């Protein structure tokens, strides 16, 4: 995606086939059998802009070649450092973490059961591990191990990059005083405020387009800001994350201002809104969606990429005092 392309997620996909081997005695050569697509487990890292030295969320999605997915429960993640492009090394074991299932909004979260293979209509989501700390920049592998209902132990591995520093605004940094488009912006295409305007000529949640980040900062108001393109998302994990933020705004409107920033000013002309570019466009790439929580003092409190847990975001909003 990318020299000016919006990449929904920066993936490095390694397909790990579950290989069945048969061995026979007498020195005869072993044979390998490629499993059918329904048994080939693919792993993708859903998180982007991972960097050294800070606890972060790492999300992974697992799916089979026939598009069924792994859903519910928890999986175990083991990370290993494999060096840089210039200096690859043998895998050096790193952190381990347990990842919990985060459903795409409006899909089942599960009831505490173990991971299971589901069709997309039954469930779809990712597994997120919290507080993963990387101690060096370069390429890392993540191996996921899951105890899957009716399948036993399944594993898959993939590779992803970790940078020395975050490319995008990160927790602890000051928020950019962005003048994003709002319902009050004049002379701009309505679809540039929310791409869903193309559906029926209306913007479904105008309350998310009332305030700019700059205004919130000036008024010393916390802000929950979602950068997303509900219509033009191209990702395996596209989902109604914007709707989730809108739902949170209805419950926690007294704790923060809620802002949706559409990615595209004009998708067909490949023009990004300036606000989205300021926050997310780096080195010819832009990843979305992103969710940022900005404190009343203008400092970024937290951020999420790809998919986020409603409960987790709500818990952080509840820690904010009511706005006066």
């Amino acid at each position, binding site marked *: 995606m990318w020299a000016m392309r919006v990449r929904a997620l920066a993936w490095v996909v390694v397909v790990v086939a579950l290989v069945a081997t048969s061995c026979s005695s007498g020195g005869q050569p072993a044979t390998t059998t490629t499993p059918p697509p329904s048994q080939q487990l693919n792993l993708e890292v859903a998180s982007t802009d991972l960097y050294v030295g800070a606890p972060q969320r790492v999300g992974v999605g697992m799916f089979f070649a026939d598009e069924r997915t792994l859903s519910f429960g928890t999986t175990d993640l083991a990370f290993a450092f494999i060096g840089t492009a210039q200096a690859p090394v043998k895998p050096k074991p790193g952190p381990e973490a347990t990842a919990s299932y985060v459903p795409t909004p409006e899909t089942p979260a599960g009831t505490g059961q173990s991971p299971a293979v589901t069709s*997309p*209509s039954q469930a779809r989501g990712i597994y997120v591990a919290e507080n993963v700390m990387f101690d060096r920049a370069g390429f890392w592998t993540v191996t996921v191990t899951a105890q899957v209902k009716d399948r036993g132990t399944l594993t898959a591995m993939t590779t992803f990059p970790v940078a020395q520093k975050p490319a995008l605004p990160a927790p602890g940094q000051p928020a950019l005083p962005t003048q994003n488009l709002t319902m009050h912006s004049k002379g701009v295409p309505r679809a540039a405020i929310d791409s869903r305007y193309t559906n029926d000529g209306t913007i479904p949640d105008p309350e998310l387009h009332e305030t700019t980040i*700059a205004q919130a900062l000036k008024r010393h108001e916390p802000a929950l800001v979602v950068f997303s393109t509900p219509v033009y998302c191209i990702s395996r994990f596209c989902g109604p994350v914007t709707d989730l933020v809108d739902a949170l705004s209805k419950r926690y409107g007294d704790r923060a201002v809620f802002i949706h920033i559409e990615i595209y000013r004009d998708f067909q002309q490949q023009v990004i*809104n300036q606000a989205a570019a300021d926050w997310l466009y780096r080195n010819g790439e832009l990843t979305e969606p992103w969710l940022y929580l900005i404190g009343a003092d203008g400092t970024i409190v937290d951020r999420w990429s790809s998919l986020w847990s409603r409960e987790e975001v709500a818990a952080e909003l509840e820690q904010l005092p009511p706005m006066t």
Partner: protein
Amino acid sequence: MRGRRRGGVLALSVALSLAACGGGYGGDASTPSPLPSGSLGVVTPGAAAAAVQGLCDVRDAPDAPVANAAFYDRTHQELHVIAAATEERDRQAAGALLEAMQRVEAELERPLLPGGFSADVEALAGATRGALDSIGLDVPACT
């Protein structure tokens, strides 16, 4: 007001660059043309045809649960793959596909299918075939 005037949006326009794995065509008669591809992978004729057939079944679904299953299990992900590949060559066609898809997805979120659902799915099928045409694939229309 002042903030809003100064804060007029500056459009950032950047030229496309071809994906390293973008689909290309050409070569001599002895060289098979590569399949179209984008950020989400390769579009195969079989997968594309299956996705369009899935839309036919979504259109004819008797109720929301059946429509949901047909859409998400048989066509949704492939539509994203097609859109990603189409985006490399024809953003208008990719945009039309994504817009039509979002319309159908929004309707599938409702407990009951709205009256214009079948027509919207038909439109999505048409947009899908348009996108496929732009990347050199031809699949049958819904019957």
